[in-house]
């Protein structure tokens, strides 16, 4: 049986959730350690700044993916509700048609 659209959307959302969670474990903030490896260097201060920047950037990315996942799940829900309303309408039409309503 072909996969229905809301299920497809939810499956995609799940994959993106995995991507968001996984990305959180790979924040490259260790770049800040360059300051310890090269004290009194020009690189030291830029490395410290970059560590902060990257933390923010990658955390931000993960959060955006979370928001995207929320959006996808909401779209799947909306699709379900539309289907339910359409089913209810069709059933009512059928009952009208055969005189039971």
């Amino acid at each position, binding site marked *: 049986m072909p996969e229905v659209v809301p299920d*497809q959307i939810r499956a995609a959302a799940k*994959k993106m959730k995995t991507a968001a969670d996984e990305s959180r474990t790979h924040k490259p903030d260790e770049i800040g350690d360059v300051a310890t490896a090269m*004290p009194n260097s020009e690189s030291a201060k*830029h490395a410290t700044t*970059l560590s902060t920047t990257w933390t923010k950037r990658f955390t931000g990315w993960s959060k955006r993916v979370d928001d995207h996942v929320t959006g996808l799940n909401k779209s799947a829900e909306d699709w379900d509700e539309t289907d339910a309303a359409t089913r209810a309408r069709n059933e009512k039409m059928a009952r009208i048609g055969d005189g039971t309503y």
Partner: protein
Amino acid sequence: MAEITIKVLQSWKPESLTSISDKLNLDRKGLVDLQDELTDGADYDGWIGADHYSAQKAHTLLEDDLVDYVAEIAKVIGALDTAATEITSAQTSLENAISTAESNGYKVNRATGTVTSTEPAEDTADAIHQQKVAGNYADLITSALESAATADSDLAAALKSANSGDIDVDGTLADQDALVALRNKTPEEQAAYLLDHPEYGKSVLETLPPGVRQEIGDQLAERSEMITDGDEVFTPERLEALNEAFDAYGQDPVVATAFAEKLGPKGLLELNREVASLAQDDDHRDTDPDAVRITPEMARQLGNLQTNLGETLSSATAGLTGDDQEGTRSRVSSEWVQQLREEGEKKYTLDGEYRDTRGNQVYGYQLLGPLLHSVDSHYLLTEVGDGMLEFETTFAHENGGHLPWNIRMVDGEPASVTRLTSSFATEGLRLDWTQGYDDKDAAGFDPMGALMDGLSNNPQASRDFLNGELPSELAPKDTLDGKPYSRVDYLMTDRHWMTDLTDHYMNNTDDIADGERLPKEPNGLERFADALQVATMDDTVDPEERKQIGNILDNVVDSATDKPVDPDDFKHLDLVNPSLRDDLGEIFAYHSETTHETFVGGDNADVGPYGTNFDEGRFRNLLADLGKDEHANDVLRTAAYTEAVHQMKIDLEGTPDPATATKVHSEAMGQILGSMDYGAQMGEIGNTQDSDKAHNDDVAQKAGLAKDVVGLIPTGKNPITGIIFDKGTEALIDNWEKSNQVDHTGSAEFDAQAQYNGRKLMAESLFEQTLLDMGYSENEAHAAAADAAIGYTSGYDSARGPK
């Protein structure tokens, strides 16, 4: 740069940099491995509607951003690895210098870096010797510290760049995965892999450390040089692979510089000699069955390769701004370009299996030519341009006017026609494959056309070149004035633009009497026109650049009109080459303000936004000559109307008396249109295609059209440029003109009287509408119409016929 002392360098831990780099690499790998999740995260085929579109867009943005972030990490990894290597090397050098000094009886001050002997000097000579030795050790220490400082600076630059987040790469996470696999390979191995996989170029090039890019440049040169190896067979497929590598990496300045340094100027020209002669053009008359014949695919790949060589050359020289500049990682030295210029004057021997064994020759500039189409580097274009021009004009001066490109060189000597008829040596040879290989596509024997094409890529280079000097001894003697001989004059009116065919026999036009065998095309004159347009039709606000433009415009007018004109022979006279008329028409239409103000300002006044100084009479002659060309006629007329209205609007702002302004500007317009109409008559231009259209007697409709025209033309003085009218205005003026045509029998001949009548009516309604548009009363507007007719007639009549 931070100050690096011995103590500071000794405190650094490059092994920690490697460790940080390893961790970053793991992070990168972890992110790259999210490719499957991201792909599956967009797998919802059945979903349609606005929500789907939004979700898809959001997803693409997330994926693109992640690819950029991963690329950024890759760049930093490369920088860390490089820094670790260089700092380790610097520390080793430092320790070696210190331990050697100390083991030889010298003391090193760790704080200051100074080195002194621990033993007292025996005498003055010994003291001097000790000082020298101490100095050597100090130099070694300084060198190590400087290397470390450079490594620090380079790493800092990479970190700073990553901080800015401005990296933007193409491709997917999977492309970035390739770099993960390459991390522990040598630069040579990385370069070889990436050259074999050019599909990764756009994704990874920006992230590669300089050492790897230099290696790519070196290996690209080596792969290209295999073309010069007579035992190698270069099929179209092989050329395609080389071209793909160039497309992916060749325009990076570090890659390009390494490539250029590896080959050297002479090597580059030798390479193109081999590229150009890899196959013969298909119009070759020789019947050698073993000759490699051109196929469309082969021609395409040869052309692509020459284009790629040009683009690479451009990238390697883009960073140069003047003479005496040293080379860096991302540009060659100015000396490299000077050597290229010297090579341009040397003869390069062509030989191949399918050629006559005498081995004919071409000049280096002719081998450089095909590359110049794709160059936009200012320094290269102007240096090579100056050199090429000087070479050809000096050669011509010393060889009875013959250009070096027009002479077939056989065994180092110019060959006579008689000798040429028995020689097939360069027939079928096409030097330039970049523009195609039809009969109409220049074969590349005259490199000046390609230089012009290159100059068209850079307006400032074009201006600088055209404003350059030319030795006065080259000036023709029969000019009307004593002005310095300009390059514009030489190129536009005096240079023999040879027909540039593969059948080189046809190119020696001076020796062939039969005119039917002298096709005019293809030649480089149109390319010159393009360069002229690029130089002059530029909205620069810089005063010096505007002065240059004004100077070029002055040169054009002067050089076209510097000989006496016989009015009885004007019809048959070409003040400029007919093929240039449409382009020059566009230039003076663009500079409509200058054109108009020349006739307002009076003879030899400095007028217009570019400070030009045309002689009115001579300029009228030029306009009449340009008027012989239908396109030039059209654009100049449209510009004349537009400019007249624009000038009127400027003058009428705040002035109570429109009569003077009307007369002045209608007269100027009349002079321009009078010249155009005279030229049209001489050029026997047919009337417009709607010439049989019935004359429109509807005054209201005519007035309405004029009103629309006037409404489109801006009010107010634009101090920067003249008007740039758009196609909408142009179409409107065209319709308005047609609506004012006097009906006639439909003859295709130019009807001077009809045109004059029609245009006078148009002038009246145009100026009338302008005043109405500005809020003047109907009476004032009618009065203006009458003044316009008088002014127009006066100007028109004074412009008829050459001066």
